[in-house]
């Protein structure tokens, strides 16, 4: 990919002018497994660094140490237990945030009064990181699961709202006019025009939301937690177990990557009608 970009101007100068290929402006055909290239390069650098001894094992454990530690943690059952707790928190918060964000975006996007009442407070909330609300949430809800799920939901809800609302508001007015000309019932208008029209925005919001969910999870699990990946890492910090911390980090990364991949997969399937620059 980089090679072709670098080489092309040079060949242009050498080649006979008559056979000059037309410069391609789009990014070209998609690479197979293109998404895996970057992470694999990173992994290779890490392995080389550890094997060559450039990386102190107290600073960054070698990949193979991390794999062994992960295996041990799985054998003890600690990894699965913590992962399930974490996944539940993130999933519940994500679900709640996505539902509320979508509903509020619909109300605010489809009615002027809804927008007048809802949009302002949400913009204010948007300016306050949800992590900054944790002290207040602890006072209100205690340090139990509710606080954790609500914190995650608050982080998720904003991107879903912003992008769905934007998607709704940028639906071409010609389609609204079409709906009026066809005398569509409001429910049909919503199902056939509004929701599909806002879907690209919603899915973009969902991608941000998934990342936001894991992000909030990390924060809430390191506060007064007795379970979850974050707790496992926090405990490891107290005992100086770099490898366990890295297992946690890799796990967070994998979860983020996997969930983003899942949303992108849905995006590709659901938006197959679109012809874009990437095609």
């Amino acid at each position: 990919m980089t090679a072709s970009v670098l080489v092309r101007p040079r060949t242009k100068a050498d080649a006979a002018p008559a056979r000059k290929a037309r410069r391609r402006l789009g990014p070209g055909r998609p690479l197979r497994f293109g998404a895996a290239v970057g992470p694999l390069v990173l992994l290779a650098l890490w392995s080389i660094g550890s094997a060559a001894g450039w990386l102190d094992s107290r600073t960054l454990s070698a990949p193979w140490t991390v794999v062994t530690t992960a295996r041990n943690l799985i054998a003890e059952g600690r990894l699965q237990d913590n992962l399930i707790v974490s996944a539940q928190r993130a999933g519940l918060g994500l679900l709640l945030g996505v539902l509320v964000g979508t509903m509020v975006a619909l109300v605010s996007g489809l009615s002027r009064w809804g927008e007048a009442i809802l949009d302002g407070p949400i913009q204010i909330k948007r300016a306050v990181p949800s992590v900054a609300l944790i002290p207040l949430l602890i006072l209100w809800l205690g340090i139990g699961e509710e606080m954790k799920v609500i914190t995650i939901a608050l982080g998720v809800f904003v991107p879903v709202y912003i992008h769905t609302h934007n998607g709704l508001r940028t639906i071409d007015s010609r389609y609204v006019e079409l709906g009026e000309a066809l005398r569509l019932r409001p429910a049909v208008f919503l199902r056939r025009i509004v929701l599909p029209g806002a879907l690209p925005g919603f899915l973009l919001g969902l991608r941000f939301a998934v990342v936001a969910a894991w992000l909030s999870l990390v924060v809430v699990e390191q506060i007064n937690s007795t379970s979850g990946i974050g707790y496992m890492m926090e405990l490891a910090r107290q005992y100086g177990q770099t490898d366990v911390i890295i297992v946690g980090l890799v796990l967070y990364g994998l979860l983020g990557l996997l969930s983003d991949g899942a949303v992108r997969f849905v995006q590709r399937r659901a938006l197959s009608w679109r012809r874009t620059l990437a095609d």
Partner: protein
Amino acid sequence: MAAHAGGLTATRAVRVQGLARAFGTRTVLNGLDLEIRAGEFVALLGRSGSGKSTLLRALAGLDRGVSGAGLVDVPENSSVVFQDARLLPWQRVLDNVVLGMSGSDADARGRAALAEVGLAGRERAWPSELSGGEQQRVALARALVSEPHLLLADEPFGALDALTRLRMHELLRELCDRHHPAVLLVTHDVDEAVTLADRVVLLDDGRVAVDLAIDLPNPRSHRQPQFLAYRESLLRSLGVTPTEG
């Protein structure tokens, strides 16, 4: 037109009286009267800015928020064809055609309508996979699938190339002979108006300036002397001096 055979000649499809529309201080329609019989094909000509589209949008009920007065009486069951095909890009062709239809036979009627416009077999295609002419044919199928009593068309062929446009003229004529809707076709193309319409109405200054019945047998040809006479007279009314040829 074929509708005369149906014995519905006397039935009135559209009645407009004293219609006035203004955008700000600019008066676009000024006390306009118009009637269209059931099954009658009326072409609406006029210079750009003469209020053709404003009239059509008033008939389609798409001019909320525009100030005006007057009586507009149109059939409940009317369809609109826009200049752009206006297909929902996220719905497949058949779903676009049956958009807003209910009932278990909606799909079957949609398929039949697509077959009528020569697009049988393309039901599952996305609109972006069709050519401009094909997209406009889908729009026609969508407009006619509900068997409207009035078809409102706002320069539906304006964005098509000349060859496709000729084919669409034939298709529209065929479809109208079969379904007998009253038609109001907004166009700026005098030839198109004389080719297709039973009557040509020319707007000027917010009123009907010319109301001309086109008494020509179908199919019509540009070479017929009467065709040329109608054409010349309409062009003159539009302020264009027709050149020879």
